C-alpha cells in the first residue's frame, strides 16, 4: 500500500523538477530570440559613442568658447551662446589680451595663443604646435609627425588637449575649455551677482547698500534668478505646475465622471442586466482604446496644450475608475443599507449614509494612487501633446546640445514624482487609519 501511495508524490516531484528546468530554459530561449530580433549584434555599429560622450559630459560640465573670427575679432562666450558672451573688457582671468594676440591658459600649463599670423599651442614636454590658416590649414609639430590627438586636413585642424580642445578652420580659430558644473545656473553674466563668491552674495544680501537702486538686494537676487534667461527657472516651474495640473484635472475629473456611472455598472444597484452590461462594455472600450489613441484623437480636436493632456488622462482613467469603483460598490456590506431602509430612508439617503461611507476610503486611496502615477504619465503625455515639463524636455533633447538642461529637468521630474509618491502614500495611510 505504501508503495502505491508514493507514486503520485513522485510524479509531483518529477513535475516540479521539470518546471524548475523548463521555465528558465524557456526564458533563455525567448531572450535568445529577442537578442536577434532586436539586432543586438548590429547595435555595436549603430552605437554613437561620440554622441554618448557629448551627452554625458554635457550633462555635468560646460565649455567656454574663445573664438577668433575673421570678421568679428575675438569673443569669449559660454557654450558659444550669444546671450552668454563676456563683455570685451571683462574676460575671465584665463584669457588675456596681449597686443594683437590673445593668450589662453588651459589646465596643466598648456596654453594657446591666437597670434596674427598663426595659432600656437604649447604643450609641456612636447613643444609648440603651429597652425596657420591663411592659405589652407597647415599644422607644424615639433617632430614633424602627427600624434593621435591631432587630426588635420586641408580645411580643418582639431587638437584635443587635457582640459580643452582647439579647432582651426580657414574662417575661424576656436578654443574650448571645459569646466565642471552647470554654468550660469543662478545668475547670468548680465547680473551684478554673477562675479560674486557665495560669501559676497551672503554679505550683500544682508547689507543695506543697494546694488540695484530702488530694490533690496534679496529682491534683486530673486528676480535675477527667477528671470535667468539661460535656465529659464520661471518657465520650468510653470511647466512643472502645468504637468501637475494635467494629472490633477485628469484624475479628479475622471473620478467625478465615473463615480455616478459606477453605480449603473454595479450588480447591487443596477438590476437591469442589459444596461449594466452596456455600461461595463463602455468602460472596457474606453480602457482598451488606450491613452495613445485618445491623445491622438484629442490633439486633433483641441490642438496642443495642457488641456488636451488633461482630457486624455481623464478619458482613459474614466474607464479604469469605472471598473474599480463598480467592483468596490459590489463588495459593500448590505446590512448598513438595510438598516437605513428600516428607518424609512429613501434611495438618496441610503446612498449617502449607507454606501458612500463604506466605499469612500477605498475610492479615495485609488484616486490618490492614480494621481501619483498620472504625474509621471503626464510627463509622457506632455511630450506628445506639447505641454508641461514633457514639452521642455523634448525640446531640450532635440537641440542635441543642451544636455545640462535635460539633466536638470530629469532631476526635477524625479523629485516631483517622488514628492507626489510620499504625499499620496501619507494621505492614503491617514485615510485608511482614520476609518478603521
Amino acid at each position, binding site marked *: 500500500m505504501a508503495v502505491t501511495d508514493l507514486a503520485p508524490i513522485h510524479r509531483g516531484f518529477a513535475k516540479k523538477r521539470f518546471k524548475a528546468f523548463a521555465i528558465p530554459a524557456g526564458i533563455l530561449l525567448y531572450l535568445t530570440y529577442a537578442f536577434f530580433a532586436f539586432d543586438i549584434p548590429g547595435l555595436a555599429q549603430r552605437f554613437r559613442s561620440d554622441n554618448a560622450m557629448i551627452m554625458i559630459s554635457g550633462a555635468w560640465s560646460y565649455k567656454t568658447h574663445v573664438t577668433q573670427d575673421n570678421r568679428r575679432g575675438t569673443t569669449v562666450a559660454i557654450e558659444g551662446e550669444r546671450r552668454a558672451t563676456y563683455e570685451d573688457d571683462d574676460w575671465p582671468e584665463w584669457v588675456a589680451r596681449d597686443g594683437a594676440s590673445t593668450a589662453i591658459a588651459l589646465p596643466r600649463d598648456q596654453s594657446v595663443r591666437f597670434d596674427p599670423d598663426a595659432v600656437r599651442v604649447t604643450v609641456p614636454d612636447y613643444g609648440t604646435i603651429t597652425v596657420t590658416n591663411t592659405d589652407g590649414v597647415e599644422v607644424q609639430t615639433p617632430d614633424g609627425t602627427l600624434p593621435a590627438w591631432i587630426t588635420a586636413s586641408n580645411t580643418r585642424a582639431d587638437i584635443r588637449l587635457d582640459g580643452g580642445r582647439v579647432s582651426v578652420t580657414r574662417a575661424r580659430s576656436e578654443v574650448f575649455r571645459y569646466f565642471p558644473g552647470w554654468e550660469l545656473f543662478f545668475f547670468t553674466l548680465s547680473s551684478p551677482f554673477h562675479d560674486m563668491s557665495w560669501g559676497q552674495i551672503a554679505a550683500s544680501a544682508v547689507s543695506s547698500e543697494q546694488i540695484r537702486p530702488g530694490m533690496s538686494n534679496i529682491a534683486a537676487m530673486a528676480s535675477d534668478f527667477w528671470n535667468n534667461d539661460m535656465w529659464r527657472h520661471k518657465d520650468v516651474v510653470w511647466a512643472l505646475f502645468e504637468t501637475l495640473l494635467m494629472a*490633477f*484635472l485628469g484624475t479628479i475629473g475622471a473620478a467625478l465622471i465615473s463615480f455616478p456611472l459606477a453605480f449603473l455598472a454595479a450588480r447591487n444597484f443596477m438590476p437591469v442586466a442589459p444596461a449594466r452590461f452596456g455600461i461595463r462594455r463602455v468602460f472596457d472600450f474606453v480602457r482598451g482604446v488606450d491613452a495613445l489613441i485618445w491623445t491622438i484623437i484629442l490633439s486633433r480636436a483641441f*490642438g*496642443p496644450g495642457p488641456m488636451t493632456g488633461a482630457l486624455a488622462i481623464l478619458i482613459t482613467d474614466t474607464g479604469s475608475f469605472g471598473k474599480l469603483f463598480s467592483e468596490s460598490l459590489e463588495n459593500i456590506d448590505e446590512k448598513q443599507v438595510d438598516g437605513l431602509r428600516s428607518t424609512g430612508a429613501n434611495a438618496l439617503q441610503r446612498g449617502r449614509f449607507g454606501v458612500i461611507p463604506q466605499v469612500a476610503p477605498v475610492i479615495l486611496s485609488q484616486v490618490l494612487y492614480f494621481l501619483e502615477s498620472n504625474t*509621471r*504619465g503626464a510627463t509622457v503625455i506632455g511630450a*506628445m501633446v506639447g505641454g508641461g515639463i514633457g514639452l521642455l524636455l523634448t525640446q531640450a533633447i532635440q537641440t542635441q546640445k543642451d544636455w545640462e538642461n535635460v539633466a536638470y529637468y530629469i532631476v526635477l521630474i524625479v523629485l516631483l514624482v517622488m514628492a507626489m509618491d510620499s504625499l499620496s502614500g501619507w494621505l492614503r495611510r491617514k485615510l485608511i487609519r482614520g476609518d478603521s
Partner: protein
Amino acid sequence: MTDTIREDYLAAARRKRMYSGILLILFVAMLASGFDLAQSRNAGGFLSGLSRIFDFPGELLTEAFQKAGSIPGHMWNYLPSLIETINIAAVATLFGALIGGAMSLLATRGLARWPALIPVFRRLLDICRAVPEVVIALALIFAMGGGPVPAMVAIAFHTIGALGKLFSEVNENADLKPVEGLSSVGASWSQRMWLGILPQVAPNWLSYALLRFEINVRASAILGFVGAGGIGYELKNAISWGQGRFDAAASIFLLLFLTIIAIDQLSSRWRNSLIEGEHGRH
C-alpha cells in the same frame, strides 16, 4: 438633559456639514480655475474642440469603410512592428521582474542579504519608479540611434522600480519558517531565497508581472510614437500622411485595440487562475 445633548449634536452636525460644504466649494473652485487655466494655455478651446471631437474618428471610419478591402492587407503588413512592440514590452517586463525581484529581496526587512543597505535599495527602487520612460528612451535614442533597445531599456528601468516595490510588499507577508529551516542546515543566502521564499511568493509575483506586462505594452506603443520604433512609430507616420491614406492609420488603430483587449483578457484570466490556485492551497 436630553435636549442639550440633542442641541449639541445638531450644532456639531451643522458645523461639520458647513465645513465639508466650504471644502467642497473650495475644491470645485480649484478644479474650475485649474481647468480655465489649462484651457487658456491650450491651442484650441474646449467648446470649439468639443464640436470637432468626432471629426477625426469620423474621417478615419468613413475611409476605413470605403477601403475596407485594404484593411486586412495593411494589418498583415504592420504585424511585424506590432510584434516588435510586444517584444519590447515582454523583454522589458522580464528584465524588470528579474532585477526588480532580486532588488525586492534585498530591500525587505528580515530577508535582506545586507540589512544595513535596505534603505539604499529602497531609494534606488523609488528612483527607478520615478523616472518617466520617455526620458530614458529619448536620451538613449540620441546615443544608440533608434531601434527597439532604447525603448526596452527605458521600460525595463521603470518596471524594476514598480515591480520591486510591489514584490517587496509580497515578500513582507512571506512565512520565514522555511528560511529558518534552510539556514539551520547551512544554506547560503541565495539558496534560502530560491528554495524558501520564491515558492511562496511566485504566484503573486507572476500576477503582478502580468499586470505590468499589460501596462508595458501600452507604454511601448506610446514610446514608439515618440520615436522609439514599433507600432507607435508606424502610427505616427500613417497619421502624418493625411487624408486619403487614413486606411493605414485605421488598421493600426484596430490592430492596437484588438491586441490590448486580447492581452488584457488573457492576462486577467491567467491572474485569476493564479489567485484561485493560491486560495485553493490554503
